[in-house]
């Protein structure tokens, strides 16, 4: 199998901002590559270079075998794009938008109409199909834009944060759509800030930060980089933390981290549920009351945190933290 997308050393600088600073990646045919990164990591800039919207300062890229710089028209014949900000025409209705896009992909008029109708239904926009997109909610615009990317069933699809701003139901729908596409052999490059999404959809993941790739691999590989399983315990009384620590030193395979404030203890383990049972028995014998106990496998969040040194911006609190950090 060939690669649907290749990028080698892509660079894009804006004055002193290194938006993208040497990104190389591959999307094997029929697979999904998730590009994961926090705000300002360079995800959108990368997608815009690959989709012929901006020219890289350096580096090379191909999409469906066509050189992005030398033959952008050939690239455009093979791609469907949904950018971070919905590229819909506000004055046109949803139907007119999709029909126009279909016509610009040069589908015959009849087919264009049929395809528009089909997509409007698929994206649950049939009720609003005939009013101007100006009257659509953010999520509806987003869905209309995504439908636009799929109009001609192109072999390679780029989705820049396809589910940002969608409600849970629409997000689930979107995941189904992407899975369907992949089932039909479409290659997908998607960016996301949601680790869960990358975990769910992507065959391969690249993590970028400050315009550079800082890690890549499958979701499992990335998790493995962060380390194995851990046992997490919350004891009922703060006085028993010392006793609990002694127990865990025996059960676990590394140093015990204890937090007096939350009464939480964490230790790496190798025995899985065996270690869990062993710990439960020991606590029981010593009459240490346990509020919560469990084996925790690392999530992509953990991976992200350990790779970038900061959390993925997946909740508001982090945004505020970051803003506060920038302001000071």
């Amino acid at each position, binding site marked *: 199998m060939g690669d649907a997308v290749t990028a080698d050393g892509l660079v894009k600088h804006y004055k002193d901002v290194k938006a993208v600073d040497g990104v190389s990646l591959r999307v094997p045919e029929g697979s999904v590559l998730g590009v994961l990164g926090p705000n300002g990591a360079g995800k959108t800039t990368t997608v815009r270079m690959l989709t012929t919207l901006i020219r890289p300062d350096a580096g090379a890229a191909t999409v469906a075998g066509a050189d992005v710089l030398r033959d952008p028209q050939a690239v455009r014949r093979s791609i469907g794009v949904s950018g971070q900000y919905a590229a819909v025409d506000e004055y046109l209705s949803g139907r007119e938008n999709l029909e126009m896009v279909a016509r610009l992909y040069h589908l015959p008029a009849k087919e264009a109409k049929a395809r528009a109708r089909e997509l409007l239904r698929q994206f649950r926009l049939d009720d609003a199909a005939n009013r101007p997109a100006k009257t659509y909610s953010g999520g509806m615009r987003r869905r209309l834009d995504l439908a636009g990317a799929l109009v001609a069933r*192109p072999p390679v699809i780029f989705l820049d944060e396809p589910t940002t701003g969608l409600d849970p139901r629409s997000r689930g729908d979107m995941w189904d759509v992407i899975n369907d596409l992949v089932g039909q052999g479409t290659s997908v490059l998607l960016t996301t800030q949601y680790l869960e999404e990358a975990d769910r959809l992507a065959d391969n993941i690249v993590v970028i930060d400050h315009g550079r790739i800082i890690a890549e691999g499958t979701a499992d590989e990335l998790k493995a980089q962060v380390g194995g399983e851990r046992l997490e315990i919350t004891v009922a009384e703060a006085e028993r933390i010392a006793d609990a620590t002694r127990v865990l030193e025996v059960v676990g395979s590394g140093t015990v981290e204890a937090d007096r404030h939350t009464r939480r203890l964490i230790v790496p383990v190798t025995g899985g549920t065996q270690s869990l049972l062993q710990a439960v028995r020991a606590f029981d014998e010593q009459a240490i009351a346990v509020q919560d106990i469990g084996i925790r496998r690392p999530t992509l969040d953990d991976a992200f945190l350990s790779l970038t040194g900061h959390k993925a911006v997946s909740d508001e609190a982090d945004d505020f933290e970051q803003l506060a950090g920038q302001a000071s």
Partner: protein
Amino acid sequence: MTDVRTRLSSTTADDSQEIRTGSLIGDGLTVARRNLIKIRRVPDLLIFTTLQPIMFVLLFGYVFGALAGSGASVQSGYREFMMAGIFTQTIIFGATITGYMMAEDMQKGVIDRFRTLPMHPSAVLLGRTLTDVVNNVVVLVVMSVTGLIIGWRIHHGALHALWAYLLMLLFAYALSWVFAYVGLRVRSPEVVNNASFMIIFPVTFIANTFVPSQNMPVVLKQIAGWNPVSTITQSARENFGNLYALKSGQTHAAVDKQTAYTWALQHPDLYTLSWTAVLLAVFLPFATAAYKKAVAK
């Protein structure tokens, strides 16, 4: 290279077919259709194309008409004289819509959609300028009907009249490309609007549009004499047969001589067409380059 591409497309849904790059005309028409839908949906634009021309004809016809003299026949003569001028001015203002809309489009996300589609690279500009033509035809019809109601007449037959309209449309089309370029460079719809107003107003007034320019002070008279706005107007006046409508008590030969006081005014068609050709030759490639550059920042 082609290998991968065909293989890729053959793996997608069976009813998919090879996507091809579009033709300039085909894509241009699709874009033009989109622009026309937009005009219908935006009340401002609709008013611009329908009510405004009517208002202009009535205002200029009756207000300036009073200046021509106090007799009813003098005033109706003025209204007939002024029609060619108001046609020309309005059609030139129509060309600025391209600049405004181009700048607006560049600020909107839809241009990103266009740029990732296998469209002909000049289709957006062609579609935009074609929209102006359609718009201008509507404007001309509306104004002509208004004119006919207030006493304006075509005296030299349909063929001459058609030629007059055609010449206006051709020149306005070339101007659309000028404003497309301006819109792409300036990028702010409001600025484009104000700037074009600042330029077009004097250009369409220092001409024979509303007053006989031969009576102007000498500097203005010379500017007006070489102004393509004057030559379009002169040609239209001749072709509609409105040149002698302004009652001056002079023979036709004398009016001919007085109104056509420069070489340009003596050869208005040739002169106007030359301007049209030059503007197109310069601004068609300029605007195309600006479009490519503007979107590839």
